[in-house]
């Protein structure tokens, strides 16, 4: 059973990418990034069943980096919210030309 989890991870990654492109709420976009990370974790675990334990060790690192990323990203969202009073990314146009 290696094909089905890999296909599932591809579909989950696609849903996450779609959500990231289609939503404007910064927190939901962030959740969709976590969804994509989780899809990649699933693919790594599914292949590690056949290719040795290294895939699972890598998932461990991915989870740690995801935790660090969530902490810093949410802090950035909070400080942006203090400035603009919203988390809708349409209002963040300082870098738009």
């Amino acid at each position, binding site marked *: 059973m290696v094909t089905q989890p890999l296909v599932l991870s*591809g579909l989950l990654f696609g*849903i996450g*990418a779609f959500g990231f492109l289609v939503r404007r709420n910064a927190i939901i976009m962030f959740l969709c990034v976590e969804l994509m990370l989780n899809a990649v974790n699933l693919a790594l675990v599914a292949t590690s069943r056949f290719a040795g334990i290294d895939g699972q060790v890598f998932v461990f690192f991915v*989870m740690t980096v*995801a935790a660090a990323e969530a902490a810093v990203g949410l*802090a950035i969202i909070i400080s942006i919210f203090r400035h603009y009073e919203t988390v809708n990314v349409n209002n963040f146009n300082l870098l738009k030309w």
Partner: protein
Amino acid sequence: MAEFLFYVFGSVALGSALGVVLSRNPVGSLLFMVATLASVAGIFVLLEAHFLAAIQIMVYAGAIMVLFLFVIMLLNLGHEYQRDIKTGLGAILAFAVAGALAGGVASTMRGAADAPGFQYLQGPDALDAAIQEYGILGVIARPLYTEYVVAFEVTGLLLLVAIVGALVLAKRRV
């Protein structure tokens, strides 16, 4: 049995992933995400990654999602149900891009078992034997503290930097 459970968990994961994207309420979105993470943890168990399943529940669903929930509550986003999903050309473009991505990845992944060199891999029996010998924790701890020890230490440093960075970013200017 494992096959059947996989399809149950997989359909719950896909359905609640769609719920994350389509739910209007941020808190609802978050709860759908917890359901997705829990069912992916179930699939981890089916793939004999018991330690990662426990970590997924405790760290991801338990800690990171609660952090998200804190932020949603702190910013008081749970009450405004305005739609923020893009419509029109943007949505069609996003659907096309994400659909092409998902289709491309999924069809590539479908051929993984037929890829050249796949039959030379160790296979699930080698992993089962290692779990029998070292235990569920030992099998993942041994490479973590021998082969990947530098990466492990650097990860600790990364977490320290993330803590300091989050404090500096979120602190009110005094």
